[in-house]
């Protein structure tokens, strides 16, 4: 039996969630644009310090390996941002790498980096982050009440699949960026797509809470197969966000490096460039993207295998090239190609990221077009 009150509560929660995400998005956006100003200030200061330093001494470092130098920068950046209230100081973090060697072991840079945020009260980013967290909690409540209202898993049609997988995207994003505060700058690019999917779900895919069709009943594979698919989809979304940031960042870094030869304060892509300046380097984004995609790939593999087992129980064959099966196969093969590309000379880096994005396009196609336009056995979208 469907509990209509709970179902309405769930709908309401999702609508309010959407509103909160809009606000969070505005917050993240405001943070991005305000970062422009701070960034130029910080850059200027860092530049001056650096010049002073170069006059004084040549850089000394403990380890000679390039890896170490890079590691030190990354660690430094995290340390700066991890201080409470210092989230907005991320921009100073990139400058801090230079000044660290100036005054090794002192906290001087850190305090300096913190100052603007502390004086400005709650920063836009922190505000947006808290809003996004609150929205995510409400989002989860919406998903859970839907499950309670229908007394089953909340992923039996497109609407439910969309609300649940976006909730997981948000939870994963929050989990990633609770510690690594520099990732919070990605907020716009995560909340944006999540909001888009939720709006689509709310306008085009929404169906009333209802019981299951026979093909989804009596099977524990609905928990396993679709559950894993929800996670796989969520990871693909996150992975695509990181991979596209990696691509932009790589391009940005290249241009900046070229211009650095001739200009003192190289600029590229204006405001967006300033956002990129605050994000981790393209190589650490690439590492993050790889980690997300490798988990995603394992999840897709399980989705495929569990789907096949279920297909055998439900339809009497484990594989029949139904459109949904074809596209899951395509997704799997593209992501496999991505993993191979990373290990292949000449394809590493940006080209591999391109493959990851191609995989994501396949994920989107599989979810939208295959569910609604192409007819197959998997027509459980719940849309007429």
């Amino acid at each position, binding site marked *: 039996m469907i509990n209509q009150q709970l179902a309405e509560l769930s709908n309401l929660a999702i609508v309010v969630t959407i509103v909160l995400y809009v606000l969070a998005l505005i917050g993240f956006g405001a943070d991005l644009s305000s970062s422009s100003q701070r960034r130029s200030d910080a850059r200027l200061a860092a530049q001056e310090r650096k010049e002073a330093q170069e006059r004084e001494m040549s850089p000394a470092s403990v380890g000679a390996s390039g890896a*170490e130098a890079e590691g030190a920068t990354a660690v430094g950046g995290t340390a700066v941002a991890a201080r409470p209230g210092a989230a907005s100081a991320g921009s100073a973090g990139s400058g801090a790498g230079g000044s660290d060697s100036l005054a090794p072991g002192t906290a001087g840079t850190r305090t300096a980096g913190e100052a603007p945020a502390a004086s400005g009260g709650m920063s836009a980013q922190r505000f947006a982050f808290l809003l996004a967290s609150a929205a995510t909690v409400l989002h989860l409540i919406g998903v859970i009440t839907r499950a309670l209202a229908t007394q089953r898993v909340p992923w039996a049609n497109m609407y439910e699949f969309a609300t649940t997988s976006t909730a997981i995207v948000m939870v994963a994003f929050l989990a990633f960026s609770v510690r690594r505060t520099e990732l919070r700058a990605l907020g716009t690019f995560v909340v944006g797509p999540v909001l888009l999917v939720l709006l689509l779900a709310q306008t085009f895919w929404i169906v009333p809470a209802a019981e299951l069709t026979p093909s989804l009943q009596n099977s524990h594979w609905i928990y396993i197969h679709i559950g894993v698919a929800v996670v796989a989809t969520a990871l693909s979304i996150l992975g695509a966000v990181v991979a596209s940031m990696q691509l932009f960042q790589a391009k940005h870094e290249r241009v900046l490096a070229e211009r650095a030869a001739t200009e003192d304060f190289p600029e590229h892509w204006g405001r967006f460039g300033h956002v990129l300046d605050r994000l981790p380097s393209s190589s650490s984004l690439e590492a993050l993207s790889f980690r997300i995609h490798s988990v995603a790939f394992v999840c897709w593999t399980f989705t495929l295998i569990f789907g096949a087992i279920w297909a055998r129980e*439900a339809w009497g064959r484990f594989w029949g090239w139904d459109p949904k099966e074809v596209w899951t196969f395509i997704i799997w093969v593209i992501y496999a190609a991505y993993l191979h590309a990373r290990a292949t000379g000449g394809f590493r880096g940006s080209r591999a990221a391109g493959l990851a994005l191609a995989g994501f396009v396949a994920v989107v196609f599989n979810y939208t077009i295959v569910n609604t336009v192409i007819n197959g056995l998997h027509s459980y979208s719940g849309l007429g």
Partner: protein
Amino acid sequence: MSEKNPRPDHGVRTDDAERPGTGPDEASGSGTGPSESGSWSSKPEVDGKRAAVPSLGLRGTLLFLWRQLTSMQTALVLLMLLAVAAIPGSLYPQRSVNPALTEQFLEENGRWGEVLDALGFFEVFSSPWFSAIYLLLFISLIGCIVPRVGVHLRQLRAKPPRTPSRLTRFTGYTRLELPGAQADSLIETAHRSLRRSRYRAEVREEKAGRSVSAERGLLRETGNLLFHIALVGVLVCNAGGTLTSYRGQVTVVEGGGFANSLTQYDSFESGAWFDENDMPDFRFTLEDFRATYVQPGEAGRVGEPRSFEADVQVTTPGQEQESRTLQVNKPLHVPGASMYLLGNGYAPEITVTDPEGTVVAEGPLITVPMGDINYTSQVVLKAPDAQPEQTAVVGFFLPTGTIDEQGPRSLYPDALDPQLALTVYQGDLGLDSGVPQNAYEVDLTTLTQVPGEDGDPVLIRLYPGQEYSLADGTTVSFDGLKRFAAFDIVHNPFERWILISALVAVGGLILSLFVPRRRLWVRVREQGGTTVLEVAGLARSDDPALADDVKALASRLSEVHDGQRLPDAAPSGHPEADASGGPREGSAQ
């Protein structure tokens, strides 16, 4: 990360720190250099020399082609091709999935459809081009893993490679001067601590001191090889399944039965190696079929199905008769076959008598649902024995019927107001022409419609229990209603092996993605009156924790062996040094 450890494509995969002379650092000239390099023995090098001969010749050309095929770039291109080639398989109706849709497409698209058909776009997954891609891919895969298996087996037995002579350029390089430390005990502790962290560690004597060379994560490559081999397993078992499996469809009306033999199937397909004698001897009767649908006022779309249940009495040899209920996700498994409930419909009981008064058709007639949610079903009844002319009755069965401007149609899937809307034809049914006929189709063009008693063309509308007489004396009656269920009976002896291969593949995949593979070196030298400790590592995979682990090891070792405090404490062992001092397991977080 990968920039720091560029891994060459595996066609020419080199093992930098392992093979003297190719590492990032020239290893000291002594030791097992040549033999190790020989033991690597991989075909890339051997082939490389041959292929380098200016004129390749046939053999050279073949080797060259083989090397191209088994290179990573080729695998990459083939993978992408495979993905692209699969796309039309989802856009065009596939014969193997839904032949009726394919025919419809062909009719609607004329010449264009024929071209696509000739190119195999309606059988993408068995088309020559699709098969070529995946066969090449798998040949490439095999060509790639066979040599890697050999190398890996040797590596598993080999000792960790020698410590490079200069460690400075490796990850996390740390150099500490420990004036009071004892070189030997330092090495001992390092060795023990690394072993305890599950490194394969080896103490090496060197000219100016000693070093520990350690390695872990060979499981990564093991997993990777397992993964690829298991993929071949999936393909091979799949082929085996195609050759030996069978699948048949049966339609059974309530009260009717089925015994598993070829003649009883409506349709049947099997692989080339299928042996009819392997079909298990089982039989069943369909006792009852029930369906429920969303009723007006309930949540969901009215008429959408909510449950299908088929009660069957099954008899298998050597077992008692058994009552079972099949549902959509609850198939019946008997040894050697599985039976799935995949379809259902209505079977109205219709009696037809010809003008001479002979009963020419009687009993439940399977009708074909036309695909709408409300089970508007097609009726085709052929009475070839009717006199003076053969007779066909065609029309519709409507579980909850209406006839309006749109024609006869059903408003709800359940049999709330069952009725038949029929027309009777007479003429030559063409059954003797020798051309096989579909029982559910009849060609009306050669037949003439039988008028009603008033001489006008008539659409007979019948409710259960009613009878209708036509002008010539033919009568049609609707005596009752039953339901039928459609079952697929299938068996694929390789299914289990495909599943096992697939699970082994994921297992290998997980190992190959998440086990970090790395080397660690600790070197201790007496230099200018003090003891110098050097520690460094080399990541052979994404391994963000390596630098930290190297440093942690170095600082642990220096703490334990700080000459000032504990000149000779090492041999007795320091548990805390191992507990926290060994490099962490460094999983890629």
